[in-house]
């Protein structure tokens, strides 16, 4: 597996820059790519979510705003310029910092949350060779980096000097830190079986054996524990108690507006993408096509397997998972904070621990 970082280093060698300059240039290029991915992801995902929710709620959603006069479909898929217009509106909004807030921390917080999501993308492969930098501890790095955001959330809630924000921050801290544990335990299962923290190796293992979700009943269960926990980790309904718009107004982002709020939004949707891509790589075979699940297809179909289509398969799996997350959001009511903790500590963690034990036995026996 070669990373974008390595290939850029090779292809830019003709510039004859010294090493420091070369690395800076590559980092800049890589960073721009990640930022573009995050921005486009937010634009598309917000539009997607609006249309999905509109469909579920028996209404149309945004229909009016177009790009250069093109509004999209007339019946349902209209208003494709809406999120772009929203983004422009957010960037041009008046910048408000409450008088009694801790201004330094309040400005700092969105950037910490944003960097958390941003840094995660470095180790996240979108396909076999599409990864900014290839770590041999990629999985560990992603899990570690995705918990950085919670520091920003606490800072945001505290520095706003608003009781609603404080409640939101406290809830978010308790929730995100708790749900790290079942996520970590479920991923550990994969590491035990495949024997590697390297995401490429994990997919390699799935190629030679089978998709991890079908490895054993325990792995099957682990996938659901992982997926539900990540819904909680990304603060989405039914686990959106830190934002809980009907209780806490907007939770820890109550006092934010404009660009800073846009950063929160960007990272929230980036986190969604991250956890869904991780799920599809670790449990659902990553860039492997689903053709191998049942071997009934004619030989010619296996061209879909090719490395060129890896990106397509990863995104397809991730988009399906993202759709399921949205489906959750527009179907379920919200849990209460103690019920949320109950689900984590008394259901998921014992099950994940038992899973870990049984999967080790499974590995010993089979």
């Amino acid at each position, binding site marked *: 597996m070669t990373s974008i970082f390595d290939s850029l280093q090779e292809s830019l060698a003709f510039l004859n820059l010294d090493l420091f300059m070369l690395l800076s240039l590559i980092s800049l290029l890589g960073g721009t790519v990640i930022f573009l991915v995050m921005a486009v992801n937010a634009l598309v995902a917000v539009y997607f979510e609006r249309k999905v929710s509109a469909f579920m709620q028996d*209404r149309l959603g945004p229909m009016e705003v177009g790009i250069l006069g093109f509004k999209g479909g007339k019946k349902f898929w209209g208003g494709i310029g809406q999120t772009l217009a929203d983004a422009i509106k957010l960037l041009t909004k008046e910048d408000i910092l409450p008088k009694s807030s801790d201004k330094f921390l309040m400005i700092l917080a969105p950037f910490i949350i944003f960097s958390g999501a941003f840094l995660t993308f470095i180790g996240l492969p979108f396909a076999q060779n599409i990864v900014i930098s290839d770590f041999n501890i990629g999985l560990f790095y992603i899990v570690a980096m995705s918990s950085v955001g919670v520091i920003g959330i606490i800072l945001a809630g505290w520095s706003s000097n608003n009781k609603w924000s404080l409640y939101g921050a406290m809830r978010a801290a308790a929730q995100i830190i708790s749900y790290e544990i079942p996520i970590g335990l479920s991923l550990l299962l994969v590491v035990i079986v495949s024997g590697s923290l390297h995401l490429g190796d994990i997919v390699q293992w799935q190629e030679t054996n089978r998709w991890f979700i079908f490895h054993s009943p325990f792995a099957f269960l682990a996938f659901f524990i992982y997926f539900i926990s990540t819904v909680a980790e990304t603060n989405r309904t039914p686990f959106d108690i830190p934002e809980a718009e*009907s209780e806490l107004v907007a939770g820890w982002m109550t006092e934010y507006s404009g660009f800073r709020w846009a950063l929160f939004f960007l990272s929230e949707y980036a986190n969604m993408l991250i956890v869904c891509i991780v799920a599809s790589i670790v449990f659902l075979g990553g860039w492997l096509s689903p053709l191998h699940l049942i071997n009934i297809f004619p030989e010619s179909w296996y061209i879909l397997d090719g490395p060129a289509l890896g990106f397509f398969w990863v995104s397809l799996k991730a988009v399906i998972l993202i759709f399921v997350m949205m489906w959750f959001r527009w179907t379920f009511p*919200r849990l*209460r904070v103690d019920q949320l903790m109950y689900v984590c500590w008394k259901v998921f963690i014992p099950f994940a621990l038992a899973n870990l034990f049984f999967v080790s036995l499974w590995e010993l026996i089979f």
Partner: protein
Amino acid sequence: MEANLVDKSVIETGEMVLNMGPQHPSTHGVLRLKIHTDGEIVSQIEPVIGYLHRCFEKHCEKLSYEQIVPFTDRCDYLASMHMDHAYSIAVEKLLDIELPDRVEYIRVIIAELQRIASHLVAVGTFGLDVGAITPFTWTIRDRERVLDLFETLCGARLLYNYIWPGGVSHDLPPKFIERTLDFLDYFDPQIDELNNLLTTNKIFIERTADVGILPPEVGINFGVSGPSLRGSGVNFDLRKNEPYSIYSKFDFDVPVGKGEMGTIGDTWDRYYVRVLEMRESAKIIRQACAELPGGDVHAALPKKIRPNAGEVYGRYESARGDVGFYIMSNGKNIPMRVKMRSPAFCNLSVLSEISEGWMISDVIAILGSLDIVLGEIDR
């Protein structure tokens, strides 16, 4: 080892006063709650009301009886027809008017349609309070059809000024009955769909069952009425117990809370009673539509309302409970005193009693289940 690991001299803990409202998504208007909290646990609630006070009772002392009707509309703006009806019944009692049958039937049909519309908002916003957004858009979609019916009836969608003392402002428009029956045919399956999506949802039950239990004797002592009291298992509905208008002619049940998912009188029961009441209202409308007699709806409209000196207390079962109009007349065409007993006012007063010791999220759910309308509380 010492049991108390926290050194209280270093870490101070104390109550925090959380100011919920007057601008807050879940206070259903401009209600303000001063919530004393210990962490997430609520220890005391002080409701502060009056942000929507529009001097209804003071206005009534300056206006003739007919002119008050539009003001009653604006009290409970989600069930304006009920307010009109309640006021008209009180004035008719004062004047001792006999109404034509057609007027009574029209009033019952309209009042029950209004009850469906009002309960749809109550049920939908309750879902919103516990975090379910889709049921709200569904119920609003259905309510829209009732409002369309009202629009054909009197041109207005929210504040109708339709039911007048002595009659109604217009006769039914052509095809109104057919359209009403069409709506009911459409509406019955929608309730099942709502039950599938929200009522029987596991998370919804976890959030609402056994939460905010209102014991019947406490409810009666606080003057709670309507679906909120019936949720506690008290079979008390003025349409059955003290039938006004022509409700005694119709066959319908009074749904009461049974504690199916938890304890009797919990938030889920109060919610579910409203869902069941919508079905009963539909039943009444079907019966009334089938029996609707002919006649002139303006036959009993008084030329001038000038009651004799005296007073009257009229009770009415509105969507929120027991509306009372206490009207004192001194023989002029302007009332001496109009006092409105607002059901949501009394229902809200029980909030601090039943929500202490619960969490902030539960307070929101309990408040939603009481179904308050601030226009009516503040008048």
